[in-house]
């Protein structure tokens, strides 16, 4: 069907609250990535899922961040006890896998604002 979708598109939350961000990858894509992009900055890698392999969590900035991918499809990024520095756009991307073509298809992102 369509491309990568993410929800919500915008989320405003109070400091200390938990948030869940959702990503629906393109059907059949086995690889899924989460990135964070602060205003005017580059892409900060957070976590990577590839098929049934253990996820690469090396980019998660703290133990307040976690992500899961159910059934090899939909992924949820959870941020607990949000802080103001968590404010950013959270981008999800999927790809067919690690080999060629391997290009990543990005979703529109979730803009998170922590007040």
């Amino acid at each position, binding site marked *: 069907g369509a491309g990568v979708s993410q929800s919500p598109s915008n989320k405003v939350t109070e400091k200390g609250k938990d948030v869940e961000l959702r990503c629906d990858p393109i059907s059949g894509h086995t690889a899924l*990535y989460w990135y964070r992009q602060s205003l005017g900055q*580059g892409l900060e*890698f957070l976590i990577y899922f590839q098929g049934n392999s253990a996820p690469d969590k090396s980019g998660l900035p703290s133990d307040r961040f976690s992500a899961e991918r159910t059934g090899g499809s939909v992924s949820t990024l959870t941020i607990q006890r949000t802080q103001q520095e968590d404010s950013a756009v959270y981008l999800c991307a999927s790809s067919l896998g*690690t080999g060629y073509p391997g*290009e*990543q298809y990005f979703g529109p992102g979730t803009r998170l604002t922590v007040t």
Partner: protein
Amino acid sequence: GQQVMQIPQYQHVQEGEDFTTYCNSSTTLSNIQWYKQRPGGHPVFLIQLVKSGEVKKQKRLTFQFGEAKKNSSLHITATQTTDVGTYFCAGRPQGAQKLVFGQGTRLTINP
């Protein structure tokens, strides 16, 4: 750790001038990809280079992959206002599973 450095961070040109952004990796790459992110948008895949010394062209855009597969460049000839955005390179280190993104080069154009 594995790093991909991209320069310059910002570039402002007059419309019609050329533009080049460079990408350098600390390790040998299996392949390198380029993405464009328009203001307010999300990154969109442009191209992938796999072979040592590879050169690919897309209209006014020329992409190169270095002989040692550690560096790459994107050159835009005669920029147009539609070229405005941030250009990211993303390399896959040999033996690694994931892409490593450069910090991007933000291109602005004076019409």
